[in-house]
């Protein structure tokens, strides 16, 4: 007896307002008397600030407030953003200031905030502020940053090393000493900017009567934002409400709390008027966090049968100028590398380097694509050396299904052991290969070569940690109107979170999703919340919703049994009523809620008041999803263009709560992965000056670049870690794609003995490889 709404393709609750242009994104919110903010940003990657003269800006009609750090800081109880996730690996503390003072350390760093009657006037006033900068040496490259004698990204810093850790187990040196084959590669990996189609933004609305502040923010983490605002503004939790409106995509950077949020909120309180700031696209390029560069120097030891004996090496990670989240991208990369395979010995040292660039924090995939790329490139190289098919060498090393659950020697960043909970990795790869007609490819390739065309195929496997705990809050409440209210700390940004929660709640409570109201990402309706990141919300909020709904269901039946004078076993919830099976007798949900709400002096049905349950189901271990991607490409020998002619993707995220949404998440991830493989490059010159600051210079995937032949298949290995058997899927699509494409391009260019050790792969890289240009 269930509602029939979970695990199927129900219509999305989000769609109607979005399709009608009646959604409410942050820039759609207009508060009476609202003012507009703009930020003066550093034009230099590194410079000392000698003086700031804002008098002309202040004098401009329509300007209400101009604040530099010197003006703002006296009003703050905390002038730096203390957001770093704890780690013993830190070598320096780099908490960024709300506004820069004394020194700017990246292009785009906020130096002053201007509030004016409209954005046009605010931007006019920006050009009237005079800042006397004294340019300093800039650190533009993460490898050079760690060289002896390198200039430092911050004046007075001892060096540019911010994080240093080694992840390892077993005895890699012994493994390499006994290896039949050792391969080694230097890999230069780049991931660019997140580019949600909606940039960041917030509206801060002060209420001087009650001394409260409401902040509408396009954030993935509203509860964190409230805590930060309380710390920075010296307010109590009950004085600050942070609420997310519709969010036009997140992909990582919106999980970070930003200086702009603090400055705008402070300005609104100082003025006693609402202030809105909407990031424009150029600001997104220079002031929203990015993922950028990792340079890997890694080697793989194998026995003569092609079994992995060990992996070791080093990785240098571009951290940017401040710590805006932690060492987690580097950690995610290094810990993702061995996960899909049996690796007996492993040691990677990761060093994070401070550079004069905007901080690095996770973007969809959060380092895992880079770790997978490193592993898969080494496996290809080893297959070449051993004369093995690239699929075969993987087959010999994938964690087999009969070893599940497989306790790896790895630990998560929180110190918990990584246990692969379920899955059949070899089967997953086999099905991907079959979809791709891997076995028939050599014939296709040869036939094409006869015509002077270069085809290639490549495969990559991944395992992704999803459902980061420890919890997400969900409450479920039946009100006297008969409607069911759900509130959660989860924060939607396009993943259909409201639909997902309504599906699970309706499944237990009558099957009418239209009777379920979901409030997500609002500190006023949820006391606790972690928010959206790490492919976690379906797993964590979904589980809490499921458990809370069952409790509410039990209570509904208990009250109904009293009202109907029937046994609970004979009752069923159908739509908005509970009826006695096989009879016409029923009582509506509204009547049940009214009875449970109580009458003065009368006994409560079931002896308890109200019908509600709140859950923060704690699940510490992550659940591991997996998948395999096969890319087939044609490389144009004349232009170096790479066309993806076929892409086969097989994945396993446990049970699919909504198969079409799952597929949509995978597709979006694949598109992002292709962008990372071929197009997306956030460029900086040797003074760390960004050189790609609009969407014509920085190439996002468009409809024409998406392969026509994409085949996605699903395996379902339910996880035992939650009662729904589900795993996260939001990031999976992106993880193996660059590795598979690089492998395919290399295969296409095998007559030239080309090595694709760098992403993105641009046409000129291909042409250089074909010309045998080692200096490319």
């Amino acid at each position, binding site marked *: 007896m269930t509602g029939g709404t979970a695990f199927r393709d129900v219509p999305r609750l989000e769609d*109607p307002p979005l*399709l009608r242009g009646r959604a409410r994104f942050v820039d759609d919110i207009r508060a009476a008397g609202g003012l507009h903010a703009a930020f003066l940003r550093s034009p230099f990657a590194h410079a000392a600030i000698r003086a700031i003269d804002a008098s002309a800006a202040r004098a401009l009609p329509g300007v209400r407030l101009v604040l530099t750090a010197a003006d703002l800081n006296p009003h703050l109880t905390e002038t730096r953003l203390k957001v770093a996730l704890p780690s013993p690996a830190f070598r320096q503390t780099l908490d960024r200031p709300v506004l820069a003072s004394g020194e700017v350390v990246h292009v785009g760093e906020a130096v002053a905030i201007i509030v004016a009657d409209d954005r046009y006037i605010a931007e006019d006033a920006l050009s009237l502020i005079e800042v006397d900068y004294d340019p300093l040496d800039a650190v533009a490259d993460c490898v050079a940053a760690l060289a002896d004698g390198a200039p430092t990204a911050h004046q007075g810093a001892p060096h540019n090393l911010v994080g240093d850790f080694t992840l390892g187990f077993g005895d890699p040196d012994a493994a390499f000493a006994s290896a039949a084959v050792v391969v080694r590669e230097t890999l230069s990996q780049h991931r660019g900017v997140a580019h949600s*189609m909606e940039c960041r933004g917030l509206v801060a609305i002060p209420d001087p009567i009650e001394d409260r502040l409401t902040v509408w923010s396009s954030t993935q983490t509203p509860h964190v934002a409230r805590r930060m605002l309380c710390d920075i503004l010296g307010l109590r939790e009950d004085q600050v409400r942070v609420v997310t409106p519709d969010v036009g995509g997140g992909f990582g950077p919106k999980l970070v709390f930003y200086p702009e949020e603090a400055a705008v909120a402070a300005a609104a309180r100082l003025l006693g008027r609402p202030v809105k700031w909407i990031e424009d*696209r150029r600001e997104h390029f220079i002031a929203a966090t990015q993922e950028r560069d990792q340079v890997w120097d890694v080697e793989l030891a194998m026995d003569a049968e092609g079994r992995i004996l060990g992996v070791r090496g080093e990785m240098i990670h571009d951290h940017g100028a401040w710590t805006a989240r932690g060492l987690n991208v580097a950690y995610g990369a290094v810990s993702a590398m061995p996960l899909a395979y049996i690796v007996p010995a492993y040691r990677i040292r990761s060093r994070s380097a401070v550079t004069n660039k905007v901080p690095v924090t996770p973007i969809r995939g959060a380092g895992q694509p880079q770790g997978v790329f490193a592993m898969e490139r080494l496996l290809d190289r080893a297959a070449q050396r051993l004369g093995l098919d690239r699929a075969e060498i993987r087959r010999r090393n994938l964690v087999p299904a009969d070893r599940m659950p497989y306790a790896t020697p790895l630990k998560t960043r929180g110190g918990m052991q990584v246990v692969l909970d379920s899955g059949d990795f070899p089967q997953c790869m086999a099905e991907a290969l079959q979809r791709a007609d891997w076995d028939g490819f050599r014939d296709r390739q040869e036939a094409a070569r006869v015509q002077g065309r270069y085809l290639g195929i490549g495969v990559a496997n991944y395992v992704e940690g999803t459902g980061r705990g420890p919890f997400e809050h969900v409450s479920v409440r039946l009100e006297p109107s008969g409607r069911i209210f759900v509130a959660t700390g989860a924060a939607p940004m396009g*993943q259909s979170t409201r639909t997902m929660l309504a599906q699970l709640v309706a499944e237990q409570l009558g099957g009418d999703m239209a009777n379920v109201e979901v409030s997500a990402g609002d500190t006023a309706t949820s006391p606790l919340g972690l928010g959206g990141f790490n492919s976690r919300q379906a797993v964590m909020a979904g589980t809490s919703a499921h458990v809370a709904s069952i409790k509410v269901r039990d209570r509904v039946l208990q009250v109904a049994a009293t009202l109907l004078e029937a046994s609970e076993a004979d009752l069923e919830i159908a739509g908005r009523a509970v009826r006695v099976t096989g009879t016409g007798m029923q009582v509506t949900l509204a009547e049940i809620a009214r009875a449970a709400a109580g009458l003065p002096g009368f006994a409560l049905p079931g002896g308890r008041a109200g019908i509600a349950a709140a859950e923060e189901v704690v699940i510490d271990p992550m659940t591991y999803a997996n998948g395999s991607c096969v890319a087939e490409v044609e490389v144009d020998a004349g232009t170096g263009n790479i066309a993806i002619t076929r892409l086969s993707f097989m994945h396993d995220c446990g049970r699919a709560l909504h198969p079409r949404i799952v597929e*949509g998440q995978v597709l*979006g991830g694949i598109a992002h992965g292709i962008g990372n493989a071929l197009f997306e490059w956030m460029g900086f010159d040797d003074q760390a000056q960004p050189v790609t600051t*609009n969407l014509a210079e920085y190439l996002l*995937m468009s409809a024409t670049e998406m392969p026509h032949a994409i085949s996605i298949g699903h395996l379902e290995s339910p996880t035992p870690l939650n009662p729904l058997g589900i795993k996260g899927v939001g990031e999976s699509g992106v993880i193996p794609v660059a590795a598979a494409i690089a492998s395919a391009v290399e295969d296409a260019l095998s007559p030239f003995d080309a090595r694709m050790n760098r992403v993105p792969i641009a046409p000129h890289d291909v042409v250089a490889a074909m010309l045998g240009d080692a200096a490319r």
Partner: protein
Amino acid sequence: MSDVLHRVRMTVNARAATIAVEARRTLAEALREDLGLTGTHLGCEHGVCGACTVLMDGAPVRACLVLAVQAEGAAIRTVEGLAAPDGTLHPLQQAFADHHALQCGYCTPGFLMLAMAMLEENPAMEEAEMVERLSSNLCRCTGYAGILAAVRSVMRR
């Protein structure tokens, strides 16, 4: 900077509208701020993403690149005008829902208006041209497959 306001008369979704704007105000801002039609979104404000696409005398334009004063006398259509007066979704809107052509939905109004113009120009547009035309707008969420499927489903070919 200018204090001079210019009067602009246009029809927006078949209704007459008169606004007074500075010369530098974009059509997108005028629709959103002066007329309260916030369905038209801004994704880049430099003419690349297409989120701001509206129809001006039947042709798709980037409302971030058109000045409001340029719309004098024009007929503008926005996403708010797509559904029937009784609220029934236009078949194109319905197709977007049916084919999961939106996730966050931020790009959706721009794609809907672009596709509307395509449909009105040539409801039997060939696949290759359809893809080419739709590539003028950007979506970061969907990987485009759902958008292509939705538009394909309303083409009569």
